[in-house]
């Protein structure tokens, strides 16, 4: 349904001594999402996951690559012709309060996409607001309120209602629960799952929260410095992570109870920005499993099992060479 091929986004930056350099925020990302499916896009700040989302919707102009929705090209289309595509791809943003116009009653904000995309007259769309508010579990009376008069959870429900208003087939969820209280997060997670089951929507779930991705996503793509480093079905990736970065992320999640034992994979330092990055592995300086051989050839995303791919030279070598053992926390014989 949605296909992303070799998506790139580069920003010019000025390096030391005024040299022109390029920040590779998104560097050759390939994705595919089917109807009714959730793909989790996981990574830390600076991994390019949010930029990927914005480029897919053309809120930012990709520097390269192709995005198609149901076979129709989203990239390379003029803004005016983008409108019918925009109707089908909606987004829920991280901070609900920031994503709602502070000076417009929420009912009008939910109604806007309905009549702006020509799905109903302006008058009719006001009626549908009530139905949409009901769908996201809010009373219809709230339509006249302003965003700041609602709680965070209610604001996010409004944002979801607005995203659903033009009857899209694909939703991008950009950290949909990150700014909410724990007890409210769970409500939103349930709501999102319910809506997907009911409407067979495709979700791209952008999040740093592995637990959230684990619950909602069918497949998961892990991003590091603009590249996808691991891809696979959520259960398999969680059970047997191949890339050291995925292992580090998974092991960094806090314990569920104090007496739980957990093997931890520590990365060194913090991610640098991908400014004119090398072809070789980008995690190498931080990776606890790094070997000199890692830098001998470009790190490429390569399939190694049905539905699974990884961008780790050492893993691929050892896995194909049969020396790999699935011991949590230690790849192969090393570490």
């Amino acid at each position, binding site marked *: 349904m949605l296909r992303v091929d070799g998506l790139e986004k580069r920003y010019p930056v000025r390096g030391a001594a005024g040299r022109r350099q390029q920040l590779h925020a998104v560097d050759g990302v390939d994705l595919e999402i089917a109807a009714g499916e959730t793909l989790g896009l996981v990574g830390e700040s600076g991994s390019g996951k949010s930029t990927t989302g914005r480029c897919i919707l053309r809120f930012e102009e990709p520097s390269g690559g192709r995005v198609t929705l149901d076979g129709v090209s989203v990239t390379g289309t003029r803004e005016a012709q983008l409108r019918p595509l925009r109707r089908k791809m909606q987004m829920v943003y991280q901070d609900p309060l920031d994503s709602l*116009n502070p000076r417009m009653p929420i009912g009008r*904000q939910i109604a*806007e*996409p309905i009549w*702006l*995309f020509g799905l109903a007259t302006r008058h009719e769309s006001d009626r549908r607001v009530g139905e949409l508010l009901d769908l996201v579990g809010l009373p219809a009376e709230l339509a006249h309120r302003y965003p*700041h008069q609602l709680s965070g959870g209610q604001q996010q429900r409004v944002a979801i209602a*607005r995203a659903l208003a*033009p009857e899209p087939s694909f939703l991008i969820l950009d950290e949909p629960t990150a700014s909410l209280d724990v007890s409210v997060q769970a409500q939103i997670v349930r709501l999102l799952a319910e809506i997907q089951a009911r409407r067979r929507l495709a979700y791209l779930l952008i999040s740093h929260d592995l637990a959230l991705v684990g619950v909602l996503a069918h497949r998961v793509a892990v991003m590091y410095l603009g590249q996808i480093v691991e891809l696979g079905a959520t259960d398999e990736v969680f059970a047997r992570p191949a890339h050291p970065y995925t292992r580090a992320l998974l092991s960094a999640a806090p314990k569920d109870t104090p007496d739980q034992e957990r093997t931890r994979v520590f990365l060194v330092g913090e991610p640098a920005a991908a400014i004119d990055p090398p072809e070789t592995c980008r995690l190498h300086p931080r990776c606890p499993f790094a070997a000199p051989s890692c830098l001998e050839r470009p790190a490429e995303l390569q399939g190694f099992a049905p539905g699974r791919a990884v961008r780790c030279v050492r893993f691929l070598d050892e896995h194909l060479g049969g020396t790999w053992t699935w011991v949590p926390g230690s790849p192969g014989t090393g570490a």
Partner: protein
Amino acid sequence: MVAEATYLLRRNPITLVGLLLLVVIAVASLAAPLLAPYPPLGTDPADALQPPSARHLMGTDEFGEDVWSRVLWGGRIDLMIALGAVAIALVSGCALGALAGFSGGWVDEVVMRAMDVLQAFPSFILAMGIAAALGPSLRNLIVSVALINVAVYARLMRARLLVVKHAPYAVAARGAGNPPWRVLLVHLIPNCLTPIFVQSSLQSGWAILTAAGLSFIGLGVRVPTPEWGVMVAMGVARINAGEWWVSFYPGVCIALAVMGFNLVGDGLQDLLDPQRR
């Protein structure tokens, strides 16, 4: 909104003082035909330069016109200048600033360099030049006071717009199917207006001052029009002779009106900010 306004005014008595000042001035000016005991242009040479008395509350000027009546009528003209000039400046300035900020690129460059040119001159000198070129009349006075303020609004609008243009709700509005012009008009501009309203109130006071100044030096409205600046000018030569009242009362009015607008401007800042409640 009303409840919040009353709360803010209660908590912020200075704003209330400013508001009361403006209300009194506006009501008095509007009710000038009822309140003024004499016509504003009613000359009476026999009554020239009378000091304040029960018959002439603020005395009379050299033509025997009643200063109190003229001050009342003058309020209409000065408020009209202030509001007219600010309205023109606000609408054209905001339009230019919005255009520049929203489209960016060369449009931004052209508009903002034009604004630089306007602001390169000391504003009063520029107003003098414009007024002199257009010729002295009430309409031209309003236009010249407006013109020198256009740049202020354009800059404010552009600066605010550059901030809100990248706000998530602006992106969200695009995603909701708003064409660019609608994003600008419906979603962005309403969120830029707070500092502009504040500025308008401050600028209204300042406009009265400029207009009075221009009239004072003969580039605004002409004698005998009842305008506070002109009236100050008429009496200024006679202050040394002890006939202070001709200039004093219109001068006080200018000061009070300017103060009123400034106090209200400060108060508006609190009221219009939805986050600061």
